[in-house]
């Protein structure tokens, strides 16, 4: 390659950084409703993202408000920590007991109940620990502790926290459970591991339904109230954390409980799976759920 052609190629390549620099955030066209603009960071959980619900809601919100919504899906623990440091503007999580701490400390405000689904225990069809048919949750947990293999998320997510709560309620030390392993990964990956090993795991119904056709796992235990998976949306307290985008965050929370979105949540993938993935709950109280 001659010197001048090489120079030309180099110059073309050198323009790439400019493309990145000017590319910036993909601009959304201003919505028909109240355009607010700007950007905001939503910290949420991996299971919310895994079902694909946010993939639908995000563009809708962006179109409505003209706000660039950055959805950071990490574990519940990490999401709440982000809120505590003011690194996010709004939070959508499903670990009420953990969330309470952050509400008490004044990091989260404007709580709204958004939706719920439930957790189920899935396992191999052979069901070696004979979970099917049991009705008592603690009995089921004790049966799991005896053997058969259990795969945990182990990633400080809402699902993981729920699992630990269940062990505690049944007076079982998780570390003493035979054949229990932690993947440290999302629900989809964890389900795959359980599937491959023919073991049990605790999963939210939504993710299970989404992956059911590729798995040999079946639902072996469901129902009791503690298995409810309840989602709340919060605004990160702008009084406490000065960088928080108040207008955008409040708009997001309002968006999640708006009638149109609630309807959408209830219908989400219902036709595909024959049952709803989420039950919309705006306006209800936590106590009234599951009854």
């Amino acid at each position: 390659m001659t010197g001048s052609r090489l120079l030309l190629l180099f110059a073309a390549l050198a323009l790439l950084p400019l493309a990145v620099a000017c590319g910036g955030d993909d601009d959304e066209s201003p919505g028909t409703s109240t355009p607010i603009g700007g950007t905001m960071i939503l910290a949420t959980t991996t299971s919310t993202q895994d079902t694909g619900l946010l993939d639908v809601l995000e563009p809708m919100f962006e179109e409505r408000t003209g706000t660039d919504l950055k959805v950071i899906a990490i574990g519940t623990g990490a999401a709440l920590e982000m809120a505590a440091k003011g690194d996010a503007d709004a939070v959508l999580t499903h670990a009420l007991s953990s969330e309470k701490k952050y509400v008490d400390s004044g990091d989260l405000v404007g709580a709204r109940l958004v939706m719920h689904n439930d957790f189920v225990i899935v396992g191999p069809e052979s069901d070696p620990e004979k979970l099917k048919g049991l009705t008592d949750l603690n009995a089921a947990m004790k049966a799991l502790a005896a053997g058969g293999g259990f795969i945990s998320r182990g990633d400080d997510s809402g699902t993981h926290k729920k699992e630990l709560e269940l062990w505690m309620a049944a007076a079982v030390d998780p570390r003493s459970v035979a054949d229990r392993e932690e993947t440290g990964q999302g629900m989809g990956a964890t389900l795959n591991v359980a599937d491959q090993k023919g073991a049990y795991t605790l999963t939210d119904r939504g993710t299970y339904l989404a992956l059911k056709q590729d798995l040999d796992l079946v639902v072996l235990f469901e129902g009791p109230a503690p298995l409810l998976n309840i989602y709340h949306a919060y605004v990160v307290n702008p009084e406490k954390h000065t960088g928080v985008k108040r207008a955008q965050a409040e708009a997001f929370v309002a968006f999640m409980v708006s009638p149109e979105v609630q309807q959408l949540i209830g219908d989400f993938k219902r036709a595909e799976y024959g049952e709803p993935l989420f039950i919309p709950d705006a306006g209800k109280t936590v106590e009234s759920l599951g009854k």
Partner: protein
Amino acid sequence: MGELFDGLVEALRLIGSGDAELREIAWRTLVVSGSATVLAMLIGVPAGYALARGSFPGRTFALASVNTGMGMPPVVIGLIVWLMLIRSGPFGGLELIYTKQAMVIAQLIIAIPLVVGFTAAAVQALPRELPELLKVLGAGRLRTLWLVAKEARLGLLAAVMAGFGAAVSEVGASLAVGGNLQGDTRVLTTAIVLETSRGQVERAIALGIVLLAMAFAVNLTLTIAQQRNRA
């Protein structure tokens, strides 16, 4: 084995169908990692040259740092850049977190030690007298750098390939500072992580194939350029 094969077939179908999201992610990967590599060269080549030929206090320290940088786990760099850019961090006010620019920064930092190291090695392999020769022949400083680079082009092209390879295969850092946002900061590597985490094996395989093809294509082009200049 059957699942792997099914995955491959489905993946090829996805690629062949010209899936829009796939194309978008692939293009973004090229732009982000390409930019990081170009910037790494712009900074790293002069630095490598100075390191190879200079004699200044702290040179040994600098050399050791470069070698350490080459061995540093990229995810650690990602973590550090993330801590710098989040709102509660020292550069939070720049609002760079979860943007493509942040990814370029992280990948750039990861690639630079490689570029510096390769360049220094290439320059040191040149005859000692070369820069002085060019000086007495009348070349100014910039011209000398350009001519020396031309003489060292075999090594420099290796530096580009190494830098790009590091940047494009980076997962942890890109994930941490980019946030893997759909339509914004999702690149091939972070998309693979996501799809795997979701259990979407076919899409993950498809992304993997595209990534391998891209890396190979880039390296093939550069290798052709490198070998042709061997004359």
